[in-house]
């Protein structure tokens, strides 16, 4: 599986592409534009700012966005393709964002890296130190980051961050630990796509210990430890993790969960309080799938995408 379509909705708002005038396309009719009859506000939508392969530099497009749109009203921002280091003059989108922080005072929701397979392999998306975003935008309530090449994070502190998601083919252990060591008392939803060691996903359950302990995440209700080559180990760790008792939704989806992991999950602490358990994309046997369903009668369990176990090759849904 791969990610094949750009976002159409983000954090509750429809995504609208910022149309750069050099597209040769009119930019009127966009929300918040000064076109006659425009009743809309720049804050009504999630703005998607991106370049394309032979397009202008991302920096130029971002500058045009700042100059054209009433950015003081913008609450939701989606950053798409910004080029690659092997292109010439590719900017650092995090630096551009942090420099522009004063012009984006209302920013609450940010997606960094709405880049699809046709544009780059997820494991090739080049990130950087994203700690800077949390420093520059203390009002961020919702942050999603795709790609983990050179991704860095140091522990952050936010009283308002409610959703934090990392999508990757291999999430570095340092990032996982930094999330655990962060001070995020309002965080309700955390997803980590741990990926595989082949693509830098070197986190172990030890690196997840603080998150699973839950003491630093008092508001957490939705936890996803997904796309993991170590899904069975995670299931074992989750089976005894204190944080689980307060969750409404738990996901071990997209990974390589087998009967071994499911067994430990079922023999661990009760999961019947969950509203939803997402295990889709897994390697469970039919018998184990039936046991999981039988053990969790009131829980909405997603057991879709049963993968064949015939060649002893376990693979996560999204890696490259």
């Amino acid at each position, binding site marked *: 599986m*791969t990610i094949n379509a*750009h976002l159409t909705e983000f954090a509750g708002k429809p995504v609208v592409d910022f149309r750069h005038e050099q597209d040769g396309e009119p930019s009127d009719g966009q929300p918040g534009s000064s076109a006659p009859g425009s009743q809309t506000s720049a804050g009504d939508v999630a703005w998607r700012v991106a370049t*394309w392969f032979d397009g202008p530099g991302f920096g130029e497009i971002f500058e045009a966005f700042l100059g054209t749109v009433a950015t003081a009203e913008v609450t939701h921002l989606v950053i798409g*393709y910004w080029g690659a280091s*092997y292109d010439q003059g590719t900017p650092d989108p995090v630096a551009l964002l942090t420099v522009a922080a004063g012009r984006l005072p209302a920013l609450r929701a940010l997606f960094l890296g709405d880049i699809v*397979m046709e544009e780059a392999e997820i494991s090739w998306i080049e990130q950087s130190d994203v700690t800077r975003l949390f420093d520059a935008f203390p009002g961020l309530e919702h942050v999603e980051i795709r790609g983990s090449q050179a991704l860095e994070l140091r522990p952050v502190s936010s009283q308002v961050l409610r959703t934090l998601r990392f999508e990757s083919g291999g999430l570095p252990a340092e990032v996982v630990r930094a999330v655990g060591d962060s001070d995020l008392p309002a965080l309700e939803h955390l997803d980590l796509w741990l990926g595989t060691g082949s693509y830098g996903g070197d986190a172990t359950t030890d690196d997840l210990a603080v998150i699973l302990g839950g003491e630093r995440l008092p508001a957490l209700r939705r936890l996803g430890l997904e796309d993991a080559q170590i899904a069975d180990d995670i299931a074992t760790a989750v089976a005894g993790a204190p944080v689980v008792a307060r969750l409404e939704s738990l996901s071990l989806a997209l990974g390589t969960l087998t009967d071994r992991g499911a067994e430990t999950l079922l023999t661990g602490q009760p999961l019947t309080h969950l509203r939803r358990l997402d295990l889709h994309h897994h390697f469970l046997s039919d018998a184990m799938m039936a046991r999981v369903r039988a053990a969790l009668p009131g829980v909405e369990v997603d057991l879709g995408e049963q993968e064949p176990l015939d060649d002893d090759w376990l693979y996560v849904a999204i890696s490259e």
Partner: protein
Amino acid sequence: MTFAVVGTPGDRRTEMFAAACRSAGLDEPIVVAWRDVLRGAAPAVASGSLLRVDSPGEDAEVDALLRGPGDPARVGGGARWYASFTTALGRVAAAAEQAGARQLGDVDEIAVMCDKRRCHARLRSAGVPVPEALPPVYDYADLRARMTEAGLHQVFVKPAHGSSASGVVALRAGPAGRVKAVTSAARTAAGLVNSLRLRTYETEPEVAYLIDSLAPDGLHVERWLPKAGLDGRVLDLRVVVVAGKPTHVVVRTSCSPMTNLHLGNTRGSVDAVRDALGAAGWERALDVCAQAAGCFPGSLMVGVDLLVQAGWRRVAIGEVNAFGDLLPGITGLPGTWAEGLDTYGAQVSAALALRGPRAAAHHAAPRTVGRDLP
């Protein structure tokens, strides 16, 4: 009025075209077998007939006559295939000329369409949007050097004379010397064979072997433009243009860079694509297809592969196929004269509407026939 078809007796294309003739109240078309033509028989084209040249198809015997003996599933042999095929096309054209038959597909145009390099060059020189192409490349090292020169880090490598994605490679070079190739060509002890399951090669020696194996038959390399996606699948469009008008559209969707339907991909919703492009964008997209078809004015029908780039604002032509009309179950776009007709029925109607002593300049037909075709 009788049609003559150079094709493979009994295959789906020939049968569907015959069915379209019957539906139009015409006699069964006279089928001239590619097998016989390629063995050297004089093409028996009836005097005054309308001559349709169809694909030599997937007949193993025909394949052996074109490419030489060997496993029909093998990848490669395109250069020999092309030489045999164009020679035979010349004989078909000569026979048609002699019999006074009207040719529905100009053989020189078919020859251009069966060479992706020439096809791309013709489209480009006519101002049709196409992905940027690399100059000729002769092996893997050469390919990588040309990619670097052009600043391209992802390309489609296509055998110049291939079809059905055979030997096509989606190649990407990444940071830190990484490389990744996705292709339907599977490496076996006997060489590359076509597979219905895509393979991924991620080491330099494997990718080099792949490209070096394909290169001797000629390669066309062009920029891999990111395709638009819907519902988690990427897509492109096959647009059949009959007598200059885009008439039939199939959306091909995929979870891989290859959209060919035989590779386990599925048809998508035309309405959803039209909505995503918007009314004006849809019209522009179809206009580009018509413009591409206009580069082949002697061909009654061409099958255009339309790439819609991620973002839904830019389109480009991937390929123009001389035999791109095998779209079972697809009828003409609502509001066009082909509404309700399959691609074969539309061609029968358009062919019957042709006026004048020669088959040239088919694209004059829509102006006189327009939407009032039967």
